[in-house]
């Protein structure tokens, strides 16, 4: 999106938010995003008619590739995407998304996948949060309201996916649309600021732009959306399905 000037960028977004665009959006020549089911006007609250989801095909996800991770770092200003967190050690630095390498020791079958907040329908993080700072938006995106987060880290104890990070030091190099700060807990927001503007998350965009096409974003509630169709056609997996959390992030090929 770098090549678009601010002006055209705005126009495109304006167009998206004004019209209920259902068609794909050309990002770059040859790269189409079919993620946007209904772009919502800026003044309209999110509704549970939409359930945002992410489908990750591990078969298409290359071991060693971390394009999605770097895209998230750049987009949300953590890791290499920011000059902050110089004091925290490797175990203290935030990681919103990470690549996990998995190997079945018996068969030798190995695969890799990106792991991030799974945007659970029944999020344990929100259940345990004493102040209600952890919450699920009506459209299924799980967020931390950092204004009322007291930094108790109980949500981190409760999350089965280790999706959350605590900020261990003062930050100054935040992105305007991705606030984050010392003493609060954070996690993947599913790029809520982009989704609200009618775009797909940065990781998905990067994966698609590099032609890996391992990530599919969209509305699970819209039977016409590519993600809903794929989920209806092929076997997909929820990680730790035994916990009945019904995550919005699903996997294929694991």
């Amino acid at each position: 999106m770098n090549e678009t000037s601010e002006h055209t960028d705005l126009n495109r977004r304006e167009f998206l938010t004004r019209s209920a665009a259902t068609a794909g959006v050309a990002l770059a020549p040859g790269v189409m995003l079919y993620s946007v089911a209904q772009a919502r006007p800026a003044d309209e609250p999110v509704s549970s008619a939409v359930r945002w989801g992410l489908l990750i095909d591990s078969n298409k996800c290359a071991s060693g590739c971390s394009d999605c991770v770097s895209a998230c770092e750049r987009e949300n200003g953590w890791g290499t995407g920011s000059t902050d967190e110089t004091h925290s050690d490797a175990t203290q630095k935030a990681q919103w998304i990470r690549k996990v390498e998995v190997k079945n020791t018996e068969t030798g079958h190995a695969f890799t996948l990106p792991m991030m907040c799974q945007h659970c329908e029944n999020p344990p993080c929100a259940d345990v949060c004493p102040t209600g700072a952890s919450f699920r938006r009506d459209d299924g995106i799980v967020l931390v309201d950092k204004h009322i987060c007291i930094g108790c880290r109980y949500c981190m104890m409760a999350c089965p996916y280790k999706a959350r990070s605590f900020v261990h030091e003062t930050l100054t190099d935040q992105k305007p649309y991705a606030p984050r700060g010392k003493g609060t807990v954070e996690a993947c927001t599913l790029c809520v600021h982009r989704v609200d503007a009618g775009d797909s998350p940065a990781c998905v965009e990067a994966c698609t732009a590099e032609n890996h096409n391992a990530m599919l974003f969209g509305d699970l509630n819209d039977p016409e959306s590519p993600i809903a169709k794929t989920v209806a056609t092929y076997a997909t997996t929820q990680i730790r399905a035994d916990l009945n959390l019904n995550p919005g992030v699903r996997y294929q090929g694991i």
Partner: protein
Amino acid sequence: MTCFANLKRSLTVLATVALLGASAPGGAADSGIPMPSFMEPQGTQCVEDTDFMRRNHMEVILDHRDKTMHEGIRTKKHSLKECINCHAADYQGDEKAREQHFCVSCHQYTAAQPDCFQCHSLKPEQPGAAR
């Protein structure tokens, strides 16, 4: 954002607003009261009346913050991000320039300590950047 902090802030702001009001017509030089120095906003008119905003901008922003956070309402009016976009220049890490930051300099002047900027960027969105 505690009630106490709110109260304390409201009091200091009220006091300052009174001072500013008293000294505004004649300028700082007349009354001998030092004024915060900050860069001029880029627009010509704030989204609300200036007087109203001096006293109530925090309530306005607070209200909008909860709507954005929980309901995903992203109208530009009353959005903190847009305050910054209009009021602040990109100070590019230059400490001198940072002191001219509209929000920072006035908060410093009024001894208000909002914790907004622990998390929110003080820099305006950069045109042409990744976004």
